[in-house]
Structures are given as C-alpha cells and as structure tokens.
C-alpha cells in the first residue's frame, strides 16, 4: 500500500456465492442460474476463470462418462469401480448421484463446442478405457468458463478468499466470505445466503521430488492450495477421509499422464532389467490386504505397492514399454498429443533429454502425495446425500450441503466421491447449484446476518503480513533472513518437510506411525504459532501467505486423520508401520473430523459405510 492510498472495503451481496471458478465452480454457477432465474449469482476466483483450476492447461480425456445412451455402463457399475479402487470406502450414494447425471453434462460440453474424438467404426465417443473418452481439450476450460460467464451475475477474478463468515446469531450457519483483491489490495466482504465452496484440493503439502526450479511441476497444479478444505474446516464443517492421500505413478519428472498409454496405446511396465514385476509381489500384497488384491481391476494403490517394492529391491528404474506401440504412427501421435493437451512439461522433459518413446522406454516414478477429492481419491467435506435414496445418516438437509447450514460444496471440496474428475466435478457443481437455489428459496425473508466485528477482525488478520514485513524489513540490510518475520516460501518449505518426514512422504517411502505422526503434530503446532510472524512484501506474497495458511490447516487435518485410522488401508499410498495390515473388522468405515476454531481442538469419529447391493 502506498502512503497516499487507503485500502477500500468493497461489499458484495449475493444470493449464491460460488468460491473457486474451476470445473466444479463453473458447473455450480451454470446450474444456479438455470434454477434461480432472478437470483444474484456471484462467482469469485483467485486467478482468472478463463484458465483457472486443475483444467487450466487443458485435458486430453474426460475420465468419467458412462455412455448410458449406448448401454456401455450404468451408474451402479461406476460405483462398483470407484469402491473397488478405493479399497471399499466411498460414499456410494454421492458417487451414484454424479454417475447418473454426468452423461448429460458431457453432452452439453459437446454441444458447446468441445471437440470429441469418435470411434470411426461405431460413431460413438472414442473410448480410451472403460470410463474414459478422448477429447481435443486444449480449450476445455475456456469453453466451460464461457458457459459460466453467461450464467453469473458477476464474476470476480483475482480475489483470494481467505475465510468464510458465519451468521451473527447462528454460529453453524454460513453468511458469506472475505478476501482481498490480489491486484488492488482492496478488502472484499461477500454477504451471501448460500455459499458453494468449489475451490481446489492440495498440492505442495508434501515435499515434492523436485525442490529446485522444478518444484512447480507438481502433478496437481501448484495453485491448488487446499482452500477446498481450509475454508470449510475453519467454520467447523466435518471432513471425511482426509488421510486418503493419493500417490501417482507417472512419467518421471514431468508427471505426464499414463492413462492413455496403459489403456489406449496398450503400453506396459517392466523393471530396469526388462522383467515383468507386479506378479512377484502378489503374496506380499495379499498378506497386507487379503483378497482385495484379487479384485479387477487391481486397485491403483496396490499396483503402486508393487512398483515401490520392486524399486526397494534394487531393480529400478521402472519403465513404460512404449517402443512397440509407438511404431504405429497414429499411436505415436496420440501419445505426444496426450501430453501437449494436458501436461506440456512432460513433452519438454522428453525433448530436453532426447527421449523419443518410439526408440526409448521412458522411466516412471511415484509422485509425492496429494490430498484431493476429485481424482482417484476422496478427501473432503462430509456432505448430505441425494434426497431420493441416501440413507438417513447421510441426509440432514439439501444435497451436497456440508454440516454447516447454507454451506455447499463440489469437486475437490466434497469427500467420499472418488473418480469424478473434470466432468464429475462440473456435474457435482450442478447438483450443489440446484440444491443451493432450493435452500435460498426456502429461506425467504430470513437471510443470514453478517457480524461487523467478525469481518473487521478478519481484515486486520488478513493484511497483517504486509505490516510485519514493512516494519521488520527496516531491521536488516538486505536479503531474505529476518529475525522478525518468515517469508511464505520459508513456511511452505517447512510444512512440506514436516509432512514428508513425519506423515508419510517420499523420503520415508510413504511410511509413518503413531510416534512420527504425534511428533509431526508438535512441529505443525509450532508452524501454526509462527504463522502470526509471516511477512509479505507485496500482494502476491500476501496471496502466497494465505495459500500457506490453507495448506497448513489441511495438513493438520490430514495428520489427525492418519493418526486416527489404525490400519494400512491403501498400501502404495501410505503405510502405518505400527498397523501394517488392512483391518476390515475395525476400520471398514469413514473417518470424520471436526475442528473447533475456539479451542483449536480436533474431534475424530467413525461413520458407517453403506454399500449398494451387488
């Protein structure tokens, strides 16, 4: 802030506030307008919805499409698939709900102009695998953003939302949100009747494999800063399955996707000596998880487990055998365009290292862990299920409403619903959008009341790092070392190191135990205390500071959940060294947590898993 300019406070009133304009947020915005014709629908995004969220750089496949019109799959089939891949534990009511709607979403995408590939023989969408269809998706996000812009009353780009607001008289009811404009520094107070959190999951909570310039080439986008979790956690929303982090087997260094390679190009893996290795670890895996290893397809975490064991046995690197498939020029083109459409960095790595997969079998690696709710894992908020069939324990109000009244979620924010990906996240946004309109209509003349004291207190907290830097900077000559403040990158690197070493990151081969987790919690608490000493040189650094706050709160949740679940449910994602076996007798359940912001305490409990009869 310059000496001559005071910070403005901008008030925005909305019926429905959508936080995060990625795939889920665009779906929520679109559907809110369809059902709420005369409502004020506001979408707020920390970047620019034209290229924001995980789909910013494009996608080459839509990974969740039933194909009901051709009888390819039914919603029940998708539930069975997701349940199997997640070792038995998914919210089947929510998963079915997405699966029954998702085809309609994809058909709209095509109508809007998304280029779909088609099978030349059948005329159907070109299948990459049972659930995946192939697209030319470079402009997937700009197309979806166009639909959202046409739906929203207002879109606010470049506003970092830091906190939700609660009702003055009912603490368990949402009343809006606050944040700041990353360009102007103005303070924004959004007053809303309903809030839909559709922000991003968590990259950069565990130390990435590349820690130099390449630290930004994480598998999940570096701008996915766990706001999907921190915003609801702060106001006491219950979270589920936060321990269920995901580790990705991907091409080395660029983290280029392997789905099309395995499923469509029919490439396969072998160890450094050219041998098949997965079957060697069958008995080993069976001893850990029993007959889950016999299921088809083999759960992703268990394939990771075989990969890790083979490398530990000294037979790395694991390679993808591409040299056979790439002799077909069509397959070669698909292989390259797959990267250029969604992970350009992998093409760069191969070009730089002279790796032409037609002649060289490229190396694979296992990534650092990520916490998210939209890909092949299901961390997120505990949400009310669909009204027509969800069991009573999963139903306390409107569909996709969290345990805080008026607070809805979609995409990475909602837990228990693995394998929704881009199309399922947009679809879940639509489900939440319709439900939020119903909620707002039912409120009639009882809108929530924002507390002036609350948003004034938050303003001070939010901008304090700028003040810390301004004052502390005078103590030192130059450089980054100050006795009075830490920069956001310092805090981020400490967080990543704690999570890596104590909560099951790459440096321990994803291993942890109760002693490590408790020590990790002590160190996270000290980091939490140090957060009041963060220094931000400018508004960009202030954004980084609040992204760190969100990542830290999500990490605390992950650590508490990991400590609570006394088993190793997903070997290959993480291991509890003190409880190495899967334990269906005691842990065939969801884990739930609730954070109390007044006491700073976390309360953990179990919740039942209901299955669709199979």
């Amino acid at each position, binding site marked *: 802030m310059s000496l001559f300019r005071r910070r403005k406070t901008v008030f925005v009133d909305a019926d429905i506030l959508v936080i995060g304009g990625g795939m889920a947020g665009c779906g929520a915005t679109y559907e809110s307008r369809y059902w709420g014709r005369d409502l004020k629908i506001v979408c707020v995004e920390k970047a620019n919805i034209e290229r924001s969220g995980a789909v910013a750089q494009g996608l080459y496949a839509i990974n969740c499409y039933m194909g009901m019109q051709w009888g390819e799959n039914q919603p029940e089939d998708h539930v069975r698939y997701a349940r199997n891949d997640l070792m038995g534990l998914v919210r089947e*009511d929510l998963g079915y709900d997405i699966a029954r709607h998702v085809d309609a979403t994809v058909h*709209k995408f095509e109508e809007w*102009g998304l280029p779909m590939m088609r099978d030349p023989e059948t005329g159907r969408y070109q299948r990459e695998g049972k659930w995946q269809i192939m697209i030319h998706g*470079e402009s997937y996000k700009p197309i979806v953003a166009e639909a959202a812009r046409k739906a929203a009353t207002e879109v606010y780009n470049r506003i970092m939302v830091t906190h939700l607001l609660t009702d003055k008289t009912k603490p368990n009811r949402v009343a809006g949100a606050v944040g700041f404009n990353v360009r102007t520094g103005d303070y924004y107070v959004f007053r809303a009747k309903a809030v839909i959190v559709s922000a991003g999951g968590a990259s950069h909570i565990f130390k990435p494999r590349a820690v130099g310039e390449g630290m930004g*080439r994480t598998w999940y986008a570096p701008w996915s800063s766990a706001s999907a979790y921190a915003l609801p956690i702060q106001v006491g929303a219950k979270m589920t399955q936060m321990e269920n982090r995901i580790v990705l087997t991907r091409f080395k260094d660029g983290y280029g996707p392997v789905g099309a390679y395995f499923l469509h190009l029919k490439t396969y893996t072998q160890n450094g000596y050219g041998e098949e290795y997965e079957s060697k670890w069958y008995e080993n895996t069976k001893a850990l998880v029993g007959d889950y290893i016999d299921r088809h397809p083999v759960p992703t975490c268990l394939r990771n487990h075989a990969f890790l064991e083979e490398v530990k046995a000294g037979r790395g690197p694991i390679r993808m055998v591409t040299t056979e498939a790439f002799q077909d020029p069509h397959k070669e083109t698909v292989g390259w365009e797959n990267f250029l459409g969604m992970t350009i960095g992998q*093409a760069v790595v191969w070009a730089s290292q*002279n790796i032409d997969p037609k002649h060289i079998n490229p190396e694979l690696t296992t990534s650092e862990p990520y916490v998210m709710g939209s890909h092949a894992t299901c961390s997120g908020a505990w949400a009310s299920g669909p009204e*027509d069939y969800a069991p009573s324990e999963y139903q306390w109000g409107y569909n996709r409403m969290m345990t805080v009244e008026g607070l809805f979620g979609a995409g990475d924010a909602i837990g228990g619903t693995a394998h929704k990906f881009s199309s399922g996240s947009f679809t879940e946004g639509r489900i939440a959008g319709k439900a939020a309109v119903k909620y707002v209509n039912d409120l009639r003349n009882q809108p929530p009341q924002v507390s002036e004291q609350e948003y004034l207190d938050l303003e001070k907290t939010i901008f304090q790092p700028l003040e810390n830097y301004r004052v502390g900077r005078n103590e030192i000559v130059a450089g980054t070392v100050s006795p009075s403040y830490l920069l956001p990158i310092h805090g981020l690197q400490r967080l990543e190191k704690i999570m890596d070493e104590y909560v099951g990151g790459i440096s321990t081969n994803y291993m942890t135990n109760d002693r490590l987790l408790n020590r990790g919690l002590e160190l996270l608490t000290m980091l939490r205390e140090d957060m009041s000493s963060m220094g931000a040189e400018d508004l960009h650094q202030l954004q980084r500071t609040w992204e760190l706050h969100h990542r830290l709160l999500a990490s605390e949740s992950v650590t508490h959940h990991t400590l609570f679940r006394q088993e190793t449910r997903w070997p290959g994602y993480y291991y509890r060294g003190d409880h190495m076996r899967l334990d269906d007798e005691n842990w065939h359940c969801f884990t739930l947590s609730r954070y109390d912001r007044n006491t700073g305490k976390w309360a953990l409990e179990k919740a039942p898993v209901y299955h669709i009869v199979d």
Partner: protein
Amino acid sequence: MPTFVYMTRCDGCGHCVDICPSDIMHIDKTYRRAYNIEPNMCWECYSCVKACPQNAIDARGYADFAPLGHSVRALREEAKGTISWRLKFRDGREKNFVSPIRTTPWGSIKGPAEYDAPRPEDFSSQELAHEPEALKIDGGLPALRPDQLKQGVV
C-alpha cells in the same frame, strides 16, 4: 519448464499477467515488460504462451532436470480453431502436431437463462437442467431405492 519473456518482442500489454493461474507473470517496473517473478511456482501450463499476441513468451525446461537445447512452441489460433505445436529435441530432431480446439464459434454458448424456466414441480425432482433429454436415454433419470443400501464389507 518455467516461462521467460524476450525483451525485444514484449510490448507490455499484460495479457499474460491477466491470464496466469499462478499469478507469476508480472510487469517489470523499470522495463515496462512482463517477466516470470516466481519460476518455481510455474506449472508450465502455457496459458501465458498461448495468450501472448507478440509470441514473446517461451519456456526453458526446469534447470533441475531438463538439459538445454530443446524447444516446445505453441501457436493457438482461435479464429482457425486450432493449436499447433513444434517440438525440438536437444539433438535437433523435430516433431509437429496440430489439434482442433473448438467446434463452435467463440461466444456462441446459450446461457442457462435462455432456456425455458423450470416449472415449480421440477424443483422437487432430482433432475438437473436439460434432463432427462440431455441424458439421451429412455426411462428417465436412473435412481436407487433406499433399501438397496446395506452395511458391511462387500
């Protein structure tokens, strides 16, 4: 591969600043041109490269694992509806690819309020906008019965 900006091509228009999802393309105060302020928070998503009207932005592979001498260039042409790629390997080999990006005119999407408004009774059904038609199936929206759910290991 973090992005960088060629001094002689950039005119400081700020399109890259406006689009960058990571908020790392900023305008240098002295030269009035854009640059990458935080290369280690760059995802190599190429949003800035594609948005630059002067083709002033390129990328150089991450120093910690990408040897020099490569190039991956993109040309996104909205009017033609295509994106073109040229890859150059360290050893000089080249590969070229072209893909479609959109099948309809930009700005042509019909907004949700341009459709007929839903009827009051539609609010109590489980159907979303454009359903059941957009599902393209007979029999309407699939549903489960509550008694289909059970506890235990399956």
